């Protein structure tokens, strides 16, 4: 009698030891899927997948889609869709390319390579993205035209507005400072990468600490101390592990020599230097943090989720759901502009086909990341993980030698499968 009770108690304890960590099971599932994809490809490529070089490339390839996917979460949560993000990215990219190659140097007479070129171009691009997004939102919220139609039209319009702005030509090379946002051309270097890593760890710990303190102040249940410590340790090793991989990717000797040469110095014999964290990844991290705060800790975010859950209830609670739609699409437009900076800087020029099919990748990333098309639920981290999983699949298959058409077949099937798994998960957990 007592015996069975004890075993039962012990079993419960074992289970609750895991539950005590209070990690979102969905997050855990996605991280698990991501790790599985990485490990499988690492075996298939005989260790070439998880090299610093490939991890570095994978991250900078993911950034542009991941940035837009965070905005797509808001769009889908409010029961809308945006099919125009790839085209909008192209228009923003065209606007910025023209600003830095024509407007600033010629019209403003500042010449090429002026330090103000990049800031002006980026500001103009962001304003353009926000204005177009807000216009979409107005058509959808106030004129009640379905988002599917507005943005389907937008896909055709903005793709070709971009073509018109550049007279269909490839514009480049882009400004040197601007190119820093592209990935390989702008990294923090080893020292700053480590400083960044340590600051990030401290910030994460501080976040855990304040959350715990706030719970204690209101006399809510808190995790046992050991669980907090384990969680803090996991986060720290993830961040520092990531940083060490990126700093381990070394700048080729010939390139280093050129850098030293440009500075008028001679490179010491045997000198090596790692790339470190790309600035574009930093941009993604900042976007992710801001979007997460907006989603979870601001009224705007609360209203976005409330409206997605029950638009009538939101309206009856005094929320201006039409204006909310404008804001959501305006945020989406801004994020398209930021992605345009990263994407065009990465290829060092603006081209007509930039961002082609990104709308599908972005929607797929958000959906694989657990955003429900029915509205009302979705997470920022999920969308970023979704983008990462898709990009890993794609570049993994490319490394293994799968032809592009077959890659697309696999990615398409994964999308459907991911949503099915999500449906099963929701059915089981009842949310």
């Amino acid at each position, binding site marked *: 009698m007592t015996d069975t009770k004890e075993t039962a108690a012990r079993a419960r304890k074992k289970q609750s030891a895991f539950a005590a960590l209070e990690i979102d099971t969905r997050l855990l599932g996605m991280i698990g899927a991501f790790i599985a994809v990485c490990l499988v490809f690492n075996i298939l490529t005989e260790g070439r997948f998880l090299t610093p070089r490939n991890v570095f490339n994978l991250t900078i390839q993911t950034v542009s889609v991941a940035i837009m996917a965070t905005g797509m979460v808001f769009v889908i949560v409010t029961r809308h869709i945006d099919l125009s993000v790839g085209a909008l990215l192209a228009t923003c990219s065209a606007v910025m390319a023209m600003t830095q190659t024509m407007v600033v140097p010629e019209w403003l007479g500042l010449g090429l390579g002026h330090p103000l070129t990049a800031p002006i171009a980026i500001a103009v691009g962001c304003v353009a993205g926000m204005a177009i997004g807000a216009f979409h939102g107005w058509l959808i919220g106030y004129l009640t035209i379905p988002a599917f139609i507005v943005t389907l039209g937008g896909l055709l319009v903005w793709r070709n507005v971009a073509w018109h702005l550049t007279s269909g030509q490839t514009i480049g090379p882009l400004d040197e400072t601007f190119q820093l946002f592209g990935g390989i051309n702008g990294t923090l270097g080893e020292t700053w990468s480590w400083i960044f890593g340590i600051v990030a760890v401290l910030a994460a710990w501080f976040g855990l600490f304040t959350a715990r303190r*706030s*719970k204690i*102040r*209101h*006399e*809510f249940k808190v995790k046992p101390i050991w669980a907090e410590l384990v969680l803090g340790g996991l986060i720290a090793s993830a961040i520092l592990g990531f940083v060490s991989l990126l700093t381990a990717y070394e700048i080729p000797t010939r390139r280093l020599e050129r850098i030293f040469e440009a500075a008028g110095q001679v490179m010491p014999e045997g000198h090596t230097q790692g790339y470190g964290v790309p600035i574009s990844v930093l941009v993604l991290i900042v976007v992710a943090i801001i979007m997460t*705060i907006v989603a979870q*800790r*601001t*009224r705007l975010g*609360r*209203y976005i*989720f*409330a*409206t*997605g*859950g*029950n638009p*009538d*209830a*939101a*309206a*009856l*609670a*005094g*929320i201006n759901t039409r204006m909310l739609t404008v804001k959501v699409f305006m945020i989406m437009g801004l994020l398209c502009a930021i992605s345009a900076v990263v994407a065009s800087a990465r290829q060092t020029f603006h081209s007509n086909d930039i961002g082609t099919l990104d709308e599908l990748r972005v929607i797929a990333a958000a959906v694989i990341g657990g955003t429900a098309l029915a509205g*009302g*639920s979705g997470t920022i981290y999920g969308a970023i993980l979704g983008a990462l999983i898709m990009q890993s699949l794609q570049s993994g298959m490319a490394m293994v030698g799968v032809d592009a058409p077959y890659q697309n077949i696999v990615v398409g099937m994964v999308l459907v499968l991911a949503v099915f798994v999500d449906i099963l998960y929701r059915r089981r957990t*009842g*949310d």
Partner: protein
Amino acid sequence: MAKVDRSGTPLVELRNISIAFGGVHAVDDVSVDLYPGEVVGLLGHNGAGKSTLIKCLSGAYQADSGEVFVDGKKVSIRNPRDARDHNIETIYQTLALADNLDAASNLFLGREITSGIGLVDDARMEAETRKIMGRLNPNFRKFNAPVSALSGGQRQSVAISRAVYFNARILIMDEPTAALGVEETRMVAELIDELKRQGLGIFLIDHDIHQVKTLCDRASVMKNGKLVGTVDVDDVTEDDLLGMIILGKQPEKAA
């Protein structure tokens, strides 16, 4: 029950309210009023126009014609925010809850408590929610679940606490006990009595005539969008009220 003093100005007065949807006159020239410390029951069969009438007061709908007076002053209520600004709180028949959010987020929806830097203070909102729920429904435990995971009665108690929390002066309750058990219904009845003593005016829509007779001071009966009449519940029998609802005619005595 103490008689309500109706010598002063009414707390709310709805005058000649009409609203139509397409060709349907959902509410047709209806006038009702409500005094401080009074509970007025709204009766009528399904589709009589009760919910539509009160939605013109809560800001959910805008009447095609008619006027609203609060404390004797004409007001214009264009949206739910305007109504809330006049301390009019509403428990909707549909409850109007965002199913994906938890109880606290629903309770404070549109009126979140924010910290100094403008971020929503979830911990404080949850603490406040626990406080008011402790008073209204002590058995309520599911503070961290989305309200979709709650029972019908639990959802209703969330909607009720939302209306009560913000110090309403005018409370609109559209079938507040429809999903409640015996015990919970009794608690709502007690709550109504308590709020009444505090001087609130309450519009109560309810299909239970017996309950209307015990809880309300007056009853206004609607049929097909029109007002049949308003009676003092002590002057009429339950059968009289039934006659008004079904046949749409005033009882002999009150006529």
